[in-house]
């Protein structure tokens, strides 16, 4: 039984393993009826209108209107493509994994209907190589859908065609960036491209391409089935719908919870995820994955969990992944972990990102070794400013935003850690490593 504060739409019946099969998807949630309706009786513009009216915003990070993006694709007789972004590699995010594992046909159906809206004849699911088991699940689902005539040539006798290929990546966070994804899909190293031209105009193989996240596309079947008004009963005016939120870090019940957007952040963390581990308190959170500026607990808890509220608070909802840092987490160490990730994943194409991530890691290492001075904190901040907005893609910004927020909001702690480290005191390095702490946490979850 889900918690009363959960609103399971995308994860409806997801506890039942039969949902992952075509027959189960049909029996349990009436799957593929919408595809049939759309292919047999709807025009491209009708599908587009429903998606635009629903106000569905992209769930991959930027929150751009899905219907609007689909409407940017030029009309006319040319090869157009649809790419589903299943790269999900941002630290803290694991919702797409759950959606693909438990409800793969919902995604396949969503892609097929979105392909109508985009007038695309060829679709791809770009899934990160690490998700091997989920890719197997998708392969099986796609094969079933071909078999049943929902994909391929002349779908359900409607003279409409769609090829769908599951494409496995091979381990590079940057391939989640939409233009790097296109390069990777064309068989190249995954380097981002300069925009414009945007993929909607010139994307895969130079053709107009619609790129959307797994969760975005998973929303499509129900919107087209039930209408935009139905969708808008969930969420807020500016953030309609439900959202699968990944919660991890220092909470008792980490996991994916589907909520109506706008639920108070406090409920998300304390009610759904069970609050901090015994004896701990929440210190800070990343509200939208590791690239979102961290919020202090005092700033975060009363905010509705929505795109607009997070933006107003100077952060972002991003992919909808909450990482909770409790009072025993050392913020400077957390900043270092964050910076190291982006340094490792920088593709190296632009100087501010390649050098800036490198410098930031080195400076933060000096901080935690006690070799830095308070002035170095100002230098760290200015390095971040010199990265932001100066790169081809936003990977550089994705480090700069959380790191500069941590230095600004927890400056006292940075200075204290520097001073302690200089005296040889090892600051609270590792957090939940003790077997007792883990036991306690495990007990609370089992």
């Amino acid at each position, binding site marked *: 039984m889900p918690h009363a504060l959960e609103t399971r739409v995308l994860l409806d019946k997801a506890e039942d393993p039969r949902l992952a099969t075509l027959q189960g998807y049909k029996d349990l949630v009436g799957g593929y009826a919408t595809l049939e309706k759309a292919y047999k009786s709807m025009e491209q513009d009708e599908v587009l209108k429903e998606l635009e009216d629903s106000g569905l915003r992209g769930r991959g990070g930027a929150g751009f209107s899905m219907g609007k993006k689909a409407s940017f694709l030029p009309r006319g007789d040319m*090869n157009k493509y649809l790419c589903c972004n299943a790269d999900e*590699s941002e630290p803290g995010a694991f919702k797409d994994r759950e959606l693909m594992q438990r409800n793969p046909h919902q995604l396949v159906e969503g892609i097929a209907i979105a392909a109508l809206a985009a007038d695309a004849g060829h679709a791809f699911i770009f899934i990160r190589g690490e998700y091997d088991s989920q890719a197997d699940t998708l392969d099986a689902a796609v094969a079933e859908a071909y078999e049943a005539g929902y994909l391929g040539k002349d779908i359900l006798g409607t003279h409409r065609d769609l090829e769908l290929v599951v494409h496995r990546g091979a381990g590079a966070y940057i391939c989640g960036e939409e233009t790097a994804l*296109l390069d990777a899909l064309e*068989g190249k190293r995954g*380097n981002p491209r300069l925009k414009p031209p945007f993929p909607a105009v010139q994307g895969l193989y130079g053709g107009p391409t619609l790129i959307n996240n797994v969760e975005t596309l998973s929303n499509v079947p129900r919107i087209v089935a039930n209408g935009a008004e139905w969708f808008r009963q969930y969420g807020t005016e500016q953030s309609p719908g439900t959202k699968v939120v990944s919660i991890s870090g220092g909470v008792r*019940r980490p996991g994916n919870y589907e909520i109506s957007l706008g639920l108070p952040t406090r409920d998300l963390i304390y009610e759904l995820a069970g609050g901090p581990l015994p004896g701990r308190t929440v210190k800070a959170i990343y509200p939208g994955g590791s690239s979102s500026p961290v919020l202090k607990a005092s700033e975060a808890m009363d905010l509705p969990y929505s795109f607009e509220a997070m933006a107003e608070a100077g952060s972002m909802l991003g992919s909808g992944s909450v990482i909770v840092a409790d009072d025993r987490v050392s913020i400077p160490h957390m900043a270092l972990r964050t910076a190291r990730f982006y340094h490792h994943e920088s593709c190296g194409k632009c100087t501010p990102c390649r050098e800036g991530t490198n410098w930031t890691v080195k400076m933060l290492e000096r901080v935690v070794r006690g070799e830095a001075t308070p002035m170095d904190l100002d230098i760290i901040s200015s390095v971040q400013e010199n990265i932001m907005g100066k790169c081809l893609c936003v990977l550089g910004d994705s480090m700069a935003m959380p790191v500069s927020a941590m230095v600004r909001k927890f400056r006292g702690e940075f200075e204290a850690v520097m001073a302690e480290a200089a005296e040889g005191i090892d600051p609270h390095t590792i*957090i939940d490593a003790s077997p007792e702490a883990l036991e306690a946490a495990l007990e609370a979850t089992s």
Partner: protein
Amino acid sequence: MSPVDGAGASNPNLPVDRAVTVGREPSSSPEQIPQLSEVDCPAELKERIEALMARYPDRKSASIPALWAVQERYGWCTPEGIRQAAAVMRVTPAYLESVASFYDLLHTERVGEHRIEVCTNISCWMRGGDELLDAFRAAAEGEDIFVTGFECLGACDIAPMAAIDQRYFGPLVPGEAKTAIDQLLSGDAVLPEKSLEKRPLAGDTEVQR
């Protein structure tokens, strides 16, 4: 809009490298592409790569899947394997090598018979990912097992976690590293009760108020 127009928009007088807008094209000078007759490619591998190429409007799109096939066949992307794939795909080996070296999961050097990636990113680190990595390294000492720290594997709900031969396990305590490796070496099922696939949805794991 042509790619060159787009790229030069900020300063039309600057020359624009097409690589900036469309990515670097593989070199296609025919003398650098090995002939199939020179590389002794096993028939299954050749058929597999050909089937992969057929899935895409452009055969070059199959480069990552082809490298996966090479890695599956030889345990890593061996120079000979890369030459074989290059001959089938009609691209240069250097091109495939440059692609392979970009991606963390494709190995251009020999790695062990088994592969273990232990996540040390934020959420796992908070729950003891570094200690887990140390425990796996110690337990794998002297065995033909490749252990490495890794960035977030998209399973922070089971932190701290590890991917063992491409399957996810967690939450793990350091002591389970030895158990997992013993099971791996003896061919038993690895940590069956810690497998991600067996885990219920988070909201269903406890009686709800």
